[in-house]
């Protein structure tokens, strides 16, 4: 979160005041300096990063886009529709695997494994055997990943 706040500050500083104020903040600038820095900054505006030194302050790690409840539900239903033992027309968010869709417990294990592969984290066996509807799976994933808690 701190990284995001810093990035936001850097962006607003860049957009609002431009190179002049920043230069003034970093080094006490005389008018001559200012003209020179403006010119050099002008040249640098052609590149993507105006102030590479400021980028060092906020590191950007490789991260997945943030999950939302809707996106989790979409992905869960998409994976379930790809499974050949499920009829995609009959699939609802609340359809029970055993009662409504007529699946086996081995099928349920396979479904949970597909969910693990989709979201990239393991669902332990004790909790996996209780997840019987897509809604419960979505709730479990949102619980583990702290989405809209």
């Amino acid at each position, binding site marked *: 979160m701190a990284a*995001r706040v810093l990035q936001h500050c850097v962006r607003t500083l860049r957009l609002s005041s431009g190179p002049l104020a920043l230069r003034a903040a970093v080094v006490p600038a005389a008018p001559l300096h200012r003209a020179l820095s403006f010119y050099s900054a002008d040249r640098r505006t052609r590149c993507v990063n105006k102030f590479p030194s400021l980028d060092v302050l906020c590191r950007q790690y490789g991260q997945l886009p*943030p999950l939302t409840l809707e996106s989790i539900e979409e992905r869960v239903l998409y994976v379930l529709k790809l499974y050949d033992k499920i009829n995609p027309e009959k699939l609802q968010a609340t359809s029970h695997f055993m009662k409504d869709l007529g699946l086996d*417990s*081995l099928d349920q*294990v396979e479904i*949970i494994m597909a969910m*693990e592969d989709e979201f990239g*984290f*393991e669902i332990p*066996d004790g909790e996996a055997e209780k997840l019987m509807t897509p809604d419960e799976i979505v709730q479990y994933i949102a619980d583990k990943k702290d989405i809209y808690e």
Partner: protein
Amino acid sequence: MASAFLTHHQKVLRLYKKSLRHLESWSDNRHDYRFHACVLRGRFDDNLAEKDMVKATMLLKTGEEEFWTKQHPAPYIFPDSPGGTSYERYECYKVPEWVLEHWHPSEKAVYPDYFAKREQWKKLRLESWDKEITQLQLEAEAGGPKTEALPPARIDGDLPPLWWQIVTRPRAQGA
């Protein structure tokens, strides 16, 4: 899980899952894995209708032994699971919530709404603490707790015991 012992059904499911995972680790590509996974599923399905528990247990035993001999030496473990690369990697950055108490008043003044709300939460916690403890003492078993699972709130309008720990747990994702 109700008790500490696994049922036969649960043991079979666990064997199926771990054998599929190790099969995945052995396979070069996805198509090979899908083929061998279907073959394995066929083997499990053949013995699905076994009613004799003695035979079923013997089948499970031979299955476990076969799994042991054929397991992968370095199976794929998910990053966040125990043994994975990212397991407990960010635990040191997960600051407990009592640290908020120790913020300087000038820092707290930057977020007045949040800390006002927090005072209300703390009051609620203070009020419900005695009831939680009495509930836990009433429901305590003789030989100590058998599972880590906490019981839900029994009385209407009461909060579940030790809810503060769960509500103020550190976030799973890195903010």
